[in-house]
């Protein structure tokens, strides 16, 4: 187990593995998103309360899930990097941050679009949207810290500490915002996300969620490969690949 892990942790092996996996995953991603969108937008029944506008959940909800999921990946990688000095983990954390921020932004934008027909305003201080907004700030802070430290290894470790501080705070922020929201929110306003959802609506949602995850993997692996090449531009195996013109 450990040897397998150790082998994967080598950037060279990871590069090769990612090279093989990326096209396969890209195909899987395209199929999942196509089927998910088709079933979500055309096959799933119309909601009797919200009409057609509810269909935005097929983007909004998976994006919101991804925003948290990617932060967890970043925090886990930061821990791997700080404790076991695994450089690959740092690269994954580095390339994941802008992706996570993008998904967070997507969740915010679609949430706001959904808010217009539902609440009549573009922005409602709903607990989930507010948490999502704060999460976006945390992502931005992480990227800002990383980019403002010149020394790469210092930047990596400072960012890793910040990611871990963030992961301790995210649940606290989440619950405090929820608490704040129930305190101020009149009960009449409906909340995003219904607890009971019909199976014909749920299946496309799960397909989309899986599609988003695979999409993240594809982009993350591709970007990780780029960063590996950049960081190891002077190593023998990269030079050899450049000579043979296969990157």
């Amino acid at each position, binding site marked *: 187990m450990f040897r397998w892990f150790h082998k994967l942790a080598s950037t060279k092996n990871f590069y090769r593995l990612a090279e093989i996996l990326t096209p396969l995953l890209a195909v899987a991603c395209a199929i999942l998103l196509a089927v998910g969108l088709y079933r979500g937008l055309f096959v799933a029944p119309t909601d009797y309360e919200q009409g057609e506008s509810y269909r935005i959940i097929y983007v909004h909800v998976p994006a919101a899930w991804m925003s948290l999921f990617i932060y967890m990946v970043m925090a886990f990688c930061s821990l791997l990097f700080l404790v076991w000095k695994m450089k690959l983990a740092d690269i994954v954390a580095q390339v994941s941050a802008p992706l996570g921020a993008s998904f967070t932004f997507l969740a915010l934008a679609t949430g706001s679009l959904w808010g217009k027909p539902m609440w009549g305003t573009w922005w409602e201080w709903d607990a989930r949207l507010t948490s999502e907004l*704060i999460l976006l*700030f945390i992502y*931005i802070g992480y990227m800002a*810290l990383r980019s403002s*430290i010149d*020394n790469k290894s210092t930047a990596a470790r400072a960012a890793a500490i*910040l990611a871990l501080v963030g992961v301790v*705070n995210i649940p606290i922020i989440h619950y405090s915002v929820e608490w704040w929201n129930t305190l101020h929110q009149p009960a009449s306003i409906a909340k995003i996300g219904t607890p009971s959802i019909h199976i014909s609506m749920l299946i496309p949602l799960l397909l989309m969620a899986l599609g988003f995850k695979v999409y993240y993997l594809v982009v993350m692996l591709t970007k990780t490969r780029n960063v590996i090449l950049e960081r190891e531009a002077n190593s023998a195996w990269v030079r050899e690949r450049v000579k043979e013109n296969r990157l």
Partner: protein
Amino acid sequence: MGGAFITLLKRDLTLAMRRRSDWLNPLVFFVIVVTLFPIGIGPDGSLLSEIAPGVIWVAALLATLLGLDGLFRDDFDDGSIEQLLLSPQPLSVLVLAKVLTHWLVAGLPLVLLSPLLALLLQLKLQAIPALLASLVLGTLTLSLIGAIGAALTVGLRRGGVLLPLLVLPLFIPVLIFGSSCVAAAAGGFAIGAQLSLLGGLFFLALALAPLAVAASLRISAES
């Protein structure tokens, strides 16, 4: 261990007393920010007393932030951070002394001044004990969390701009429970829940923040 803690606390307090602007400026900032609200919103007493808890808390949060950038910067510039890092005492304990100094210099005066601002904003008198209690617990927590950001950015030339970006999102739970504590007291409700939540946040920050600050300082000092 206690010796180094006291030495550092005494040194930093002496330094703060010799440079009054360090602690006086955030205090004046606090007062000015609070006065800006009635001017910006209008002198409607009932509206002011309603927003007073939030306004005082936001102003306190920003004023705390103001002093944070300097928390390690002077030590960093004159090289005494190296003496701190090379001390045989546990760094997290020394860090705690620095955070405590920051609170005594920047947080405590804020707490003491807050009743005056509460009067300016026509906050109900019955909310003042809650204001004091929540500010004591809250500003201590803010100093602890803020120190992490200060330690991470101390090696950067323009760290002062980055610092608010890093720590303000982390301040939000404290703001929520703090202002809600004051608002509840003004409305005549119980504040036990808010105070215990603030207390919980404080103890969590007390346990974890010094470790994060110590690790961040060692990283920042590399460059």
